[in-house]
Structures are given as C-alpha cells and as structure tokens.
C-alpha cells in the first residue's frame, strides 16, 4: 500500500476511473471511519454504517463513470454529504429520527445529484422487484447471464438443457417476460 500514496485526489480519481481496485480499496478504508462515526453518533448500528457507506461509495463510483462529471469538492466531503443524506432518509423511513443531527464534517447539499441518485435507486429497486416477480427458471437464467455474466454453456449445464441453442431460446423468452413486467409499471424518467 505504501507506493499508493498519490499526490492529489485527481490522481486517485484517475486511478479509480481506470479500474484500479487498489485505489478504490485505499479510498474505501480511508473514508470509512468518518462516515461510520457519523452513523454511529446518529442512532445507527455498525451494519447500517457499512451499508450506507458502501452505497455512497457506489454512487461516487458511478458518478466517476460519467465523463461529464467534475468533482468540485474533496472526495471526503462528497462521500460524507451523500452518506449523510442517505442516512437522514433512512432514519425518516425507520422513524428513528430524533430531530437533531450531529455533524463533524463539512457537507454540501448536492441538490442535482440527489435527484439523480434517487432516480437510479428507484431503477435499481424496480429491476430487482421485476426479477423477483419473474419466477423460475427465468430468474436464475437471467440473473446468471446478465448479473453474474455466466456463459451460455454454464447455464445450459446448470439448468439441464440439451444444448446451448435451447438455453438461448429460453433466455430470450425470459427476456421478453422480464420486459413485459418492466414496462407494466414503467414511468418515463
């Protein structure tokens, strides 16, 4: 890890964008304490701290994939602001909000990002719900192929199809069913 002390955050961001797992891991370990502290100080458990933090890191990672995205603050501030907002929302949903948030870092409102984050979260949850509704064997086939990137051969063996063409035909049938579910409650973004 010692050689991974880049001069600036820009350098980090570049490395993370380039898909270097070590850079992401370094970032993950560096900023966890601050956010964990925030969640624990505000009525949360360490498991919740982990979930909220990971969600913030995922959001940050996804933002980095957007070529137009420019970070206008420190990574720490970005993560803290997003985690703070996620946690406030969760507290509201869990009805554990005590009306008094203890902050120990600067944070920014990120109005624009937040609506985008909410929208992505909604898309994510909806796709998961559709997958759940799909039923077997379609769920396993599509999850293996699209989410776990399994090969058609592996799926054929697992599901017991006689050949890959059969498996493929089945996969496309499932895809059509998923599409139907997906558009049943589709709201234009």
């Amino acid at each position: 890890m010692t050689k991974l002390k880049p001069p600036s955050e820009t350098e980090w961001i570049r490395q993370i964008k380039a898909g270097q797992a070590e850079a992401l891991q370094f970032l993950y370990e560096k900023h966890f304490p601050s956010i964990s502290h925030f969640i624990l100080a505000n009525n949360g458990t360490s498991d919740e701290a982990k979930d909220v933090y990971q969600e913030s890191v995922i959001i940050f990672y996804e933002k980095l994939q957007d070529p137009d995205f420019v970070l206008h603050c420190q990574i720490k501030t970005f993560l803290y602001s997003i985690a703070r907002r996620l946690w406030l929302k969760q507290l509201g949903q869990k009805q554990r909000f005590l009306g008094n948030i203890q902050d120990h870092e600067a944070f920014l409102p990120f109005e624009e990002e937040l609506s985008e984050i909410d929208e992505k979260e909604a898309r994510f949850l909806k796709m998961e719900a559709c997958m759940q509704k799909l039923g077997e064997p379609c769920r396993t086939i599509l999850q293996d192929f699209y989410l776990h990137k399994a090969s058609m051969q592996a799926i054929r063996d697992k599901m017991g199809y006689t050949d890959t063409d059969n498996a493929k035909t089945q996969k496309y049938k499932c895809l059509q069913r998923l599409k139907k579910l997906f558009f049943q409650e589709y709201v234009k973004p």
Partner: protein
Amino acid sequence: MQDEDAIIPKIEAYFEGMLSPSETVSFEQAMEADPALRQLVEEYRLLFADLALVQQRKQLKSQLDGFHAAMLQKEAAAPKALRVAKTSKPGFANIFLKKYVPTFLVAASIAVLSVLSTIWVLNNNVRSIEQKQKTDLLSLRRDLNRVKEEQAEIARTQREKQTSPPVRQYGATAFVLTSSGYLVTNYHVVKDADSIYVESERQNDRLHFKVEVVYSDPAKDLAILKIVDEDFIGFAELPYTLRTEEANLGEPVFTLAYPRQEMVYGEGSISAQSGYLGDTLTYQISIPVNPGNSGGPLLDAHGNLIGIVSGKHLEMEGAAFAVKAKHLKSDLDSLAKENQTQALAMPVKSRLSFLSRPEQIKLLKDFVFVVRVYNGK
C-alpha cells in the same frame, strides 16, 4: 416487423456491438423504416441499461464487501501488536516515563489552556444569548441609502472634514387612522427621526405631507403620526374599521405596503396568536414581508384592520409579526386622554366587507402611505 422472438437476438447483438458494420447499417435502416421496430429497440435499450446498472452495482457491492472484510481483519490485528509491544520489556514503564515526560508536560499545559479558553468562550456565549435572540427579529425598516451613505463616508474620510452631518433616510409604511390626519406606523421606524414625511401616489398626483409623532409606544412598537402640513384639509371617509377582538388562528389576512417604490400586496393567514418568543402583543402571520413592510396595515377578509405589520423572524421562513389592533385602540384612547380631546373616532362599519379583493384594494390604497424618515445624526 418480424416476430419478436426472432428479432431479440439481433437487438441484443446490436447493443453489444456484435453485428458487423454492414449488418449494423442495414439494421439501422430497418429501424428507420419501421417505427414499431424502433419502439421495440428503444424498449430493450432501457431494459438493458437497467440490467447493466444492477449488474454493476452488485459486482461493486461484492467488491466493497471484500474491502470491508479485509479492513476489519486489519483492525483486529492492529491492537494485538500494540499489546505485545507493551509487555515486551520489564523496565518499560520507567523508560516510557523518562522519554515522554516533556510530551506529557506540553499536553498538560494545552489541556489547562483549553479548559480556560472554554470557560471564557462559554461565559461570553451565555452573556450574548439574550442579544442573539434579539437579533433574530428583524425590524422591517428599509435602510434606503445605507450603501450610498457608506460610500459617501469613505469619500468623506478621504476629503478630511465636511461640515454637514450625514442624512440617513429610511422607508416604511404608514396608514391613515382618521380622516382628520392621524396615521399609524411602527415605533422602530420613527424612533430616531429628525423629520418625517408621508407620501402617496394618486393617479397623476403625488401627495406629500410632513408629519409629527404625537404618541409613541416603544413597548408595543407603535407610533401615531399627525399631519402638520397647512395644505392638508382632510382625508375621505375611511373604508375600514378597527377590529379589536382577537383574530382566529388560520384566518386569511392581507397587507399592503411599500417595500419598494410601488405598493405591494401580500396575503396569508394568522399562523399563531402570539408572536416572537411567545409575545402576546403580536400575531404571527404567514405573509412574506420585506424591509419597508413595517407599519403596513393587516386586514382580515372583510377589510377590517386587525393589526400592524412590525417585523419578521430572521431564521424562520415565512414568519412575520403584526401588532394586534386592540393595542392600537388602547394607544388611541390614551392619546385622546392626554390631549383632552375627543376619542379619535374610527368608522364603525367597514365599507369593504363584501367587495372582491381588487375592489377592496382600490378603496384602501389611498390610505396607505410611504413613510420617509430623515435622520441627521
């Protein structure tokens, strides 16, 4: 369009870039020609995009889970190492003390210093809490030429001395109480005034009167003004009347005032029957007000006067305050007693009761004035 079963593999290949260049071109041409196909491709585009999103998130999540587990492992390992180091030598405590005494001394002095400074800061804070609360309440006097004056002051200090003192000018609102020329505004508007004028625009004519404060009540933040111009003959009969009974919570109210050169109308409702910090002299109203609104009349739906807008909460959005009309009534009574004159009679009956709001305002607007306060100190 062909059967959907048959076309999906092609659509997927298209999105994955698995079609050859010529196939891509012909596929795009087919889409161009067939709106139904285009629609289908678009649907699959959305579906694949969300599948990709879920895939990426899940993969990233499992990667982060790995980081997390590794991190926890490292943390678990770290304190153990420390424990080993502590017990490794017999005379460890002595060496440790010798080595770190200077550090301890520095740390102790910093601790003492920080305790003292904390006490100092706390003391100061406690003393200023009352002051802070006061500053939450913004009196809505418009500081018309503050900027101008600040500039002038800079210029003046550069030019050394100047003979005439600076003239401060404030703007606010006042409205007519009697047709004989009494008006009311807030005390904070006129409290350090040298001379006060009221102005109003009538069609093409601009009314401009000199007034004097004849009664001031700092506690209730009210000041009664009387027009002293010789040209003044009297106002028309007032269209509104004083409503002294307490207004109800949620009652719709409106106000007219001069936060700028032109009259501005604002409406809202009585949002609390007490004002700033539970002050029972005032109502809290949900009307957006601005500097210059001070002294504006607060009227109910029937055009009865129920208060005088006086201030707003600095840190609360949409919370303004208005002095209740019954306090104005008691001030009018004591003014009459002081001057040994007849009570300053307000009309008994409002002429605005059943008019629409624009009609009410048409009748009202001639009785609302800009107050200009000049202060030579």
